């Protein structure tokens, strides 16, 4: 009996050691330099508020940390869409002016491999920019660095919250350099086939309510022809 108790304590300690090693391993899912930030091409920047209460609408299964907004929005409770969220937001340009409107669909990805430091979300953006056209952006996002550096410290803190400055690229594919695939659908953006990167800038997080103060940013590389058209 004594040996069994010691063995159980050892197993428990081993599991704890493993989890701690995953969370504190500096070589796991390190934040990389965005390939878009070193490109010579012209880049389109779009920002949006990444907090449900500051979006136009945000909905999910209604049981997740992030609460739907507004409160009476239809919730995604059916089994095939239970792990999905939907957000509509005003998109702003680099100067903070209204540039268009976007909707983001996000679903937890079955390709998630926590052992490799990959907590993946498959997301799709549809953005309409009046006077320019529309964009379709598909990407996988890796939330592991965010979980490790923001959500876990918030959960561990006695106040159940985190405050600070965290900036990270969320895009993790399907592009070879971890970029999102961007396709133009209409207007001057029609026929566009390029890539982009989505980043998240978080300032406050609550373990109970999720993101409290955060901004998202999409950087989209523009080929010269499109860049000339959109600058007119």
């Amino acid at each position, binding site marked *: 009996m004594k*040996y069994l108790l*010691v*063995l*159980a*304590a*050892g*197993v*428990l*300690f*081993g*599991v704890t*050691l493993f*989890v701690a090693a995953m969370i504190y391993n500096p070589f796991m899912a390190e934040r990389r330099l965005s390939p878009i930030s070193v490109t010579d091409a012209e880049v389109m920047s779009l920002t949006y508020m990444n907090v449900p209460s500051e979006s*136009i*609408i945000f*909905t999910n299964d209604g049981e997740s940390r992030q609460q739907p907004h*507004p409160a*009476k*929005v*239809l919730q*995604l409770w*059916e*089994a*095939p*869409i*239970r*792990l*999905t969220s*939907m957000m*509509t937001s*005003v998109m702003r340009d680099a100067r903070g002016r*209204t*540039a*268009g*409107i976007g*909707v983001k*669909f996000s*679903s*937890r990805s*079955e390709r*998630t*491999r*926590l*052992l490799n430091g990959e*907590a993946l979300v*498959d997301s*799709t953006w*549809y953005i*309409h920019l*009046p*006077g320019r056209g*529309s964009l*379709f952006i*598909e990407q996988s996002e890796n939330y592991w660095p965010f979980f490790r550096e923001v959500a876990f410290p918030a959960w561990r803190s006695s106040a159940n919250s985190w405050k600070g400055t965290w900036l990270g690229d969320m895009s993790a594919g*399907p592009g070879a350099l971890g970029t999102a*695939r961007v*396709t133009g*659908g*209409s*207007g001057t953006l029609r026929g566009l086939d390029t890539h982009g990167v989505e980043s998240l800038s978080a300032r406050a997080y609550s373990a109970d309510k999720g993101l409290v103060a955060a901004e998202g940013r999409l950087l989209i590389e523009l080929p010269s022809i499109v860049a000339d058209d959109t600058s007119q």
Partner: protein
Amino acid sequence: MKTFIIGILLGIAAAAGALYAYPAVDQHREASIVSVAPNGGNIESFHVNIPMDRVMVGAPGRKQSVPPGMQWPTDEELSGIRMELFKVRNTRDIVVGVASRTSASDADVIDWVLHLPARGSLYATMQSQASEGGMRRGGITAGSREFAPLKGFMTERWVADTSGEEGAPSGRIELSANYIGEYIPEDEDGLE
């Protein structure tokens, strides 16, 4: 001490094994209902029951917002945009995904994005003018994951409900996606 160390090793191995063997995410899948088109390609039909599947109607100047309490932006730049969000059902009337429908006066198009969590997303751009019979048709512009290699077209049609049943929807938006895959010639070296 030896038992404790064996326990630690067992614990590490069990945690690593569990993370490796059990999927962290398991999306619920409904079987796809796809039929073969007579002139090539595959057809998959979806529909949206109105008003029960409507998640959002965003347009300037609406007296009643859907959902209640939503504040649609009043920016002049967005005055020509109408965006709707829906739940999408398959032909068995089971919700399989979500979708957005956007019409914009400046581009004179109607854009649909269908997001089916277990499969991927589909983006189609349609002309805003409907043909006779109220049908709109447009090309599949892009797709992700399962839909990435597919081209083809999508049609949209409004069908009013005439059943008169209590609690029946006022109608439905029928979407028909016609997929045409990319032809990949067989590798001659691989043939024996």
